[in-house]
């Protein structure tokens, strides 16, 4: 009974709760029982809010009993990445420098979840400040992949994807700067959507690369991602980069979800896919065959500038990060060194003690790229590459509805396998980075398993603000396949 409950999707669960068939408190208790049992193995959470969550669940039940209207996520237990500011619990970004930081405000998406009556279960582990591809850069704890506990869950939203895959929540929010939602979603066999830049408010998302960061849902089904988008998408006056809804209207992403896109034209980039492991390539090819059988037309395109995406990304993202992370200085909040003799040492020692290795590496890279004498050669050049990549996408979408490619060249790798080789780790972002540079939406959906029973993800990219069609295309595949129904052994 309890397992049936935990395997429901958000929509069924919410409708059951709203109709009074399921008690919100029963669901919340079931989730926390499971967290108590499996969290010590998975390590998905930095903080959990049992008391808070149970109280909220009871409140929702009481509202339903009283016949009141409840929100779109009424009683649904949801986890949020610990990069989102909340007035309850700490907001650590998995960094020692913010280990005890309590935000005085809620991120816009948190407010939206709360007003949709979601039950926030806890805050999930991640690579420190969202910098990484395996969640191994967390300064606070290790998260493992529920499919194979000797492997990484991917990153940086690895805590969120592990929690969703491990049934430690029903859905989660992650953030994606260069693949941080999609790559761990593919490693953990769940659905992860990076919306268009500007579709979801970044207010309260602790910034890594401001021009690339975007919050998105991590769910077990495409429908649940659509449901989450219905709650979190939209303009926010507090975020100047969130797009005016008059320019790009937000729609009901669930409304036409099950309507297949007619005369679907899919583009693939053969030049680009060759770098993936053969089992990944096969799974992607099989997935595209499914679409072909549904009547889709497949075209091959070239995207000449994608080869430079990683180089451009690691300049733009680190440059912005070097500036975004300057505020963690021990003066105003967060960790302050006890060994500082003067204010310069307050800066240098607090930062030396508080930041982890990868964060320091990226701050150094970004500072270098912005330094006088190097700016033109690095930052400015990266911006030029970025606009070329953008125009590659614009041209591509003139001839197709979407582009399909792998999410990651490999499936989940072993813990510790790449930690000594940062460059190798960076290369695992090769397929995901372009969507961030171009600002377009992209989703990862489960499309098979390798010989070690590790999930493989299919990435679908669509034109800016085309989330509705993107999700419909994803749903076409999901409706024909069972990959999303497979569960990790520990479940």
């Amino acid at each position, binding site marked *: 009974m309890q397992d049936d409950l935990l395997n429901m999707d958000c929509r069924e669960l919410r409708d059951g709760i709203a109709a009074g068939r399921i008690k919100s408190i029963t669901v919340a208790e079931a989730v926390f029982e499971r967290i108590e049992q499996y969290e010590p193995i998975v390590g998905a959470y930095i903080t959990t809010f049992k008391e808070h969550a149970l109280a909220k669940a009871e409140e929702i039940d009481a509202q339903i009993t009283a016949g009141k209207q409840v929100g779109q996520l009424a009683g649904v237990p949801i986890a949020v990445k610990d990069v989102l500011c909340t007035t309850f619990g700490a907001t650590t970004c998995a960094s020692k420098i913010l280990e005890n930081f309590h935000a005085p*405000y809620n991120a816009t998406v948190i407010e939206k979840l709360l007003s949709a009556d979601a039950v926030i279960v806890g805050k999930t582990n991640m690579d420190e400040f969202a910098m990484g591809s395996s969640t191994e850069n967390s300064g606070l704890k290790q998260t493992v992949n529920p499919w194979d506990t000797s492997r990484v869950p991917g990153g940086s939203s690895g805590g969120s994807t592990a929690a969703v895959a491990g049934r430690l929540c029903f859905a989660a929010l992650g953030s994606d700067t260069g693949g941080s939602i999609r790559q761990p979603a593919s490693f953990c066999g769940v659905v992860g959507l990076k919306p268009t830049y500007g579709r979801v408010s970044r207010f309260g998302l*602790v910034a890594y690369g401001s021009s690339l960061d975007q919050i998105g849902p991590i769910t077990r089904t495409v429908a649940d991602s659509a449901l989450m988008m219905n709650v979190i998408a939209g303009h926010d*006056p507090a*975020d*100047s980069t969130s797009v005016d809804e008059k320019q790009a209207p937000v729609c009901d992403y669930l409304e036409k979800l099950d309507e297949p896109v007619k005369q679907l034209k899919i583009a693939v980039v053969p030049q680009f896919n060759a770098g993936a492991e053969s089992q990944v390539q096969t799974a992607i090819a099989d997935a595209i065959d499914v679409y072909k059988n549904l009547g889709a037309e497949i075209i091959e395109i070239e995207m000449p500038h994608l080869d430079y995406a990683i180089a451009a990304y690691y300049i733009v993202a680190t440059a912005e990060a070097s*500036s975004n992370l*300057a505020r963690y200085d021990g003066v105003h909040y967060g960790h302050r060194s006890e060994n500082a003799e003067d204010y310069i040492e307050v800066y240098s020692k607090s930062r030396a003690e508080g930041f982890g290795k990868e964060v320091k590496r990226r701050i150094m890279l970004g500072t270098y790229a*912005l330094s*006088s004498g190097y700016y033109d050669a690095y930052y400015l050049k990266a911006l030029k590459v970025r606009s070329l990549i953008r125009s590659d996408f614009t041209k591509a979408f003139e001839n197709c509805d979407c582009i399909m490619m792998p999410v990651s060249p490999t499936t989940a790798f072993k813990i510790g396998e790449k930690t000594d080789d940062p460059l190798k780790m960076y290369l695992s972002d090769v397929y995901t980075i372009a969507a961030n540079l171009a600002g377009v939406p992209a989703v990862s959906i489960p499309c098979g398993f390798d010989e070690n029973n590790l999930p493989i993800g299919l990435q679908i990219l669509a034109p800016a603000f085309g989330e509705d069609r993107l999700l419909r295309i994803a749903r076409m595949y999901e409706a024909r396949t069972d990959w999303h129904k497979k569960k990790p052994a520990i479940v």
Partner: protein
Amino acid sequence: MSNFPYKVVVGLEIHVQLCTKTKMFCGCAVEFGQPPNSRVCPVCLGMPGVLPVMNKQAFEHSVLVALALNCKIAEFTKWDRKSYYYPDLPKNYQISQYDLPLGANGFIEIPLDGGRTKRIGITRVHLEEDAGKNLHTAGNFSQVDLNRAGTPLLEIVTEPDMSSAAEVRALAVELQRMVRFLGVSVADMQKGHMRFEPNINLVITKDGSEYKTPIAEIKNLNSFRALERSVAVEEQRQLDEFLETGRVMGMGNKTTRGWDDAEQTTVLLREKEEAHDYRYFPEPDLVPVEMNERWLNDIKAGLCELPIKKQMRYVNEYNLSDYDAGVLTAERSTAEFFVQVVDAGGEPKRVCNLLTQAGLKLANEKVCSVAELGITAGNLAELAKMIEAGTVSASAGNTIMQEMVKSGAAPETIAEELNLMQKSDTGELETIVDEIIAANPKAVDDVKSGGKKCKKAHGFLLGQVMQKTKGQANPQIVSQILAEKLN
């Protein structure tokens, strides 16, 4: 010893705090003198995850100033981050404008002595956020007050077109008057609303060659006096230094100096221009600002006749002295009130005297502008007419004005109540003059003798009549009667 001719070259960087209700990128109130850290929010504290939202009014205020400074307004402008670590800067970067300032290539006319003006080039005008303040009053640690952090700050950079301390002062004063006229800044020097940083050097001619002394920048001056004095003092210091050492301008030998007000000297802060690398890059959290014609026209509607133009017009149109016109146009409301009173029939010079003497004194006492004293233009024009007609004396006029502020009553009513009407009735005055003549034979003799003492004695007798009438006699008429009777 200094027989070498030289020129002073000064350029100025000015920061003006704009008088918007809220800060540049958040909704916190801009208020001076509040308890430390009481006008702050997560955004201006630079908390994790916050985002800036541009204050449109601050931007419009800035464009207005740039227009008044005859700048070219950028059709496309953006925000940049300027990075440096300092405890009063919560994000450790300042949101500013780097390569695309909102205004550039303008000029300002500044008034010089004798009604002359000089044109000074404006290099650029841009908008940025102010930092907070570090306080060093508590033992062996410092404290940070972030009330000011995020306040909109306009930066104006001039060309090095000024060639004396007096010109530097004139520009500063003119700019203060201008931003007040435009209503974009309170420009209160004591509250730090305007801060100046002059860059100074000399071009010295010696043995037929020109030598340029190293440039010195004097930081953070916040009074006209300090600005003018520091430039004058620095001018002399550079001359002395050149004569002593012969040092000339070279790569990286620009110095940064401070002003020691107690010692009236400039003091060295940094020997070499530090190799500051601010790592400017476009602020990704804000969108660029695109100026279209319609918006620009809306902003232009806020322009007004600028103070220096008004001053020159008042000289020509109302026959005022350059000085009087300058005093009247120091504040826009005073200047406009002056015209209202003149239009209501007041003689310009009389009106000017009332406003700049009694008016400014009363306004100072009440801490308001002359226009806000509560006197109607009609009543003040009436008072000016009474003085002009000799119904009341000029000094009684000042007393009446004071009462008008208190009671709001019409000047005639007050003059009657206080018995300030001048006696111009010749019959009545003749009787009094006769009495005085009878009582002062010595003085009468002196007048009649026509000698050296004549003028003095005439004055004495006039004084006696005035005393007798408690100042209510019209002195011109009394003088006339006296002359008639004693000749």
